[in-house]
């Protein structure tokens, strides 16, 4: 399952990231923020109705915002 399909509030673990599908700087930024294999993650808020883009993620003690296109590159499993 990719992160964009994860139900809000459900904790999950990242099992893989398709770095090749992301722009170089975006990949760097995501990695620096701790989005990487093995990290525990949850979707806590979703953006405006309709597309529900962007997503707010809980990652450790941080909240980060990403878009659905990024979430689609992140493979997760329920934790």
């Amino acid at each position, binding site marked *: 399952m990719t992160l964009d399909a994860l139900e809000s509030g459900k904790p999950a673990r990242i099992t893989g990231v398709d770095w090749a599908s992301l722009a170089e700087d975006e990949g760097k930024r995501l990695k620096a923020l701790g989005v990487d294999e093995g990290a525990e993650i949850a979707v806590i808020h979703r953006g405006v109705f309709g597309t529900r883009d962007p997503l707010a993620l809980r990652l450790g003690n941080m*909240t980060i915002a990403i878009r659905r296109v990024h979430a689609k590159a992140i493979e997760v499993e329920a934790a």
Partner: protein
Amino acid sequence: MSRKRTAALVGNPNSGKSALFNALTGARQKIANYAGVTVERKAGRLVLPSGEPVELLDLPGSYSFDAASPDEAVTRDVVKGTFEGEAVPDVIILVLDAANLEQHLVFAQEVLELGRPTVVALNMIDLAERDGLTLDPAALSQALGVPVIPTVAVRRKGLAELTDAIAEAETHADEEAHTRWHVTLPERRLSAKHMARAAILSKSTRHTIENGVDRVLLNPWIGPVILFGLLFVVFQAVFAWATPFADALEGGVGVISQGVSDTLPEGLLRDFLTEGVLAGVGSVVVFLPQIIILFFFILVMEASGYMARAAFLMDRLMASVGLSGRSFIPLLSSFACAIPGIMATRSISDPKDRLTTILIAPLMTCSARLPVYAVVIAAVIPQTSVGPGVGLQGLVLFALYVAGIVGAMAVALVLRRTVTKGAASGFIMELPRYQLPRLKDLLIGLWQRAWVFLRRAGTIIFVATIALWVLLSFPKAEPGESQLDASFAGAIADTLHPVLAPVGFNREMSLAIVPAIAAREVAVSALATTYAVDAEDEELAAQGVTAQIAALWSLPTALAFLAWFVFAPQCLSTIAVARRETNGWKWPAVMVGYLFALAWLAAGATYWIAVSLGL
């Protein structure tokens, strides 16, 4: 004598670095640019216990030395000593958010690997305690091998200890440091986790307030309503709250003007001081209260952590015109002034995204337009109420702001499909924790903005006003002839007027927009000076520019003037900054061209519609 010592604050974004910088240096800060790049260099003076002054640098927040933005590259190069023209800092003050150690310790390891003399400020320890964390600084110090000082920058807690540690740090350079550390990111992340766990004595399961607050503020339905409500309140406040202060300033200028008239003999010098300097510069300085109120709201939104939420809420909308939520922050800053707004685009990593944001930033209604709007609205829009707490004047002001935003969005859409065509950009950003903004940080921020405005009033606006007064006052009119008709300025206005007459502009307006290219608010001082020099009616001359506009302009003409200022590229400093940020004249030229075209069309459309409606 040895050279002046330097220290640098380094840390992740949102580590409370700037608050710590303010607490350590106070209001005496020097803000400039790093040589050759458009990244802001903030420096201040820190005094050690021995009395020795140290230059303290506030380096841009950074997640990693593997830079993903120009800001991060500057931090990396300065800290490593490879930035030309910058001395390598003698001491590094590594700022960590106590409540987010696991994340902040990752970058911390990269910094410590350099082996430079380093002191760790375990910052915002009060917020960590609020989140239910009890920390052990000694354990962290042991693990990192450098002194760790718990600090609460905003309450000045731990500052004396930190200063002591900075004074002592230089003797503790650890040349062997780099061999102790892991190198790959996953390894760093793992050791960050271990160090963070070892430093946390206890952790209660108390819920952080972010979740609850964000549930409301980021709610897809309520969130945008709150955001727009807030923005509406801001613009009402800018208009309503500032009035008493502006009146007081205006009264003060009047008293000085009267004093000059009474003491000096009649003649050129007296005219120059009263009609030129005081009428011109004075009419601009009275808008200082409004600018301060606007910046107050922007600074509060930034310091509280709400600005990032606003970016989150706006991302979808910005995406629809090919931008991202990140552009929202520079664009919102542009409501105060396009210059800091354009400079804030540096945080946008995508180059086409950034260029588009720079090109549309001047469409956001900056505070320099406020004097023009305020004077014209006060003159021609009745002071009636259209609902509880909603005045018609405030509503018109709001509409002008909305016109700028809608214009900007439309232009962005066109640009992203033509000149800045390219792949859709992304949006990745940290949403910082909520904090109560501290008065001292707000005051320092407001002081810096007010100072920039007053310096502009004292230089660009002063010079433009004097030049205009000279053009207006010479050659002197024959008896029976109007001074404006006789002057050089009249001749310039006559040249421009044929182009501007179709959109409803009178000669005074055609004249006023010329010096307004130096700075928009000069339009007000230009009108004030023009009417002061030209007034045949002594009573009208004494009433000030608002009354003169009310008496002399028709409603369609006044509305056309407002519409012109929504779009016109009238500030040389903005054009200069755009040139610097885009490294050439091409994009500023594109910007100026499209803005003048839009201004003429908007003024025209407004005038023609207003006339046909019989206003």
